């Protein structure tokens, strides 16, 4: 009996040693959640949401306590079959449009969405009229005889000097 156990034990130990590297690899890849597809969906959605604690971070990237809670909340709602839209409206009902990095289009945000374009069009229009006025002004300007003489004298003297 004793002799029988020893080889078995040794084989077991060898097997254990051989398993160790595998166990180490398995240890590094900690599963993020039970459902990787859902996790992907949660992260994709929370990339566009603001973490209210550290306001320049997205909900996906923040390590703030509240962000973790909200991610968990999103995860659970998605698991319960809620659509992305429903999850977002859940959050905006509580935290307002401020959680959205892309603010919704409504009268209050018109200036925000269209302001830059209005500014661009205004500036382009202003520039166009400025050029047009400048062109006609330059074209209409004619030199008097006296001025012509002075120009020629200046150019001529310049030409003589060189």
């Amino acid at each position: 009996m004793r002799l029988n156990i020893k080889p078995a034990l040794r084989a077991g130990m060898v097997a254990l040693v051989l398993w160790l590297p595998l166990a180490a690899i398995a240890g590094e890849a900690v599963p993020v959640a039970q459902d990787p597809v859902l996790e992907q969906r949660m992260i994709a959605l929370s990339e566009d949401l603001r973490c209210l604690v550290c306001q320049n971070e997205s909900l996906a990237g923040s390590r703030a306590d509240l962000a973790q809670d909200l991610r968990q909340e999103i995860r659970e709602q998605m698991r319960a079959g809620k659509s992305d839209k429903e999850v977002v409206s859940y959050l905006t009902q509580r935290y307002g449009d401020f959680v959205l990095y892309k603010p919704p289009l409504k009268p209050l945000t018109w200036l925000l969405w269209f302001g830059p374009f209005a500014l661009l069009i205004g500036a382009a229009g202003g520039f166009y009229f400025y050029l047009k006025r400048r062109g006609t002004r330059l074209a209409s300007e004619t030199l008097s005889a006296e001025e012509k003489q002075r120009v020629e004298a200046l150019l001529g003297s310049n030409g003589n000097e060189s």
Partner: protein
Amino acid sequence: MKRFMIPLGIFIVLVIFLGIGLKLDPREVPSPLIGKPAPAFSLALLSDPARQLSPAELRGKVWLFNVWASWCASCRQEHDVLLDLSKKGIVPIYGMDYKDQPADAQAVLNSYGNPYTETVVDRDGRAGINYGVYGVPETYLIDKNGIIRMKHTGPVTPEVLERKILPLVKELQQ
């Protein structure tokens, strides 16, 4: 002279906008819950975990709802202001101990005084999410019909109390 007026005008407008930008507090996020019913919860009391409290029981009176925690340093700042207010007895203050150990919260109340009529315990922060809590302390004013009328984020200072909270309390209590 006219040449300088346009750039000067643009400059002044820019300065005004930047000046306004400096005055804005990015932490003060407008709550979408103003004018909406206070979200329901049923949470255990700090003083007696066997008993529960829900906002529905407070119908008919104006009350302040203060979200705090023992780990929150700026809650300590407003503590004296709240204590003072509770001694005057103008408006009852109900507290919510947010994501905290009840024993720690009780220790704070024991050593610094208790301004709260009752404190409910929100261990996992779920009720807090429903109220849109993102940084303690936060204070809500709820009217007789259970509607949230005001929210203040950050510690309640004597100025905030005098200017923002108490006038509205008086108006709502009539």
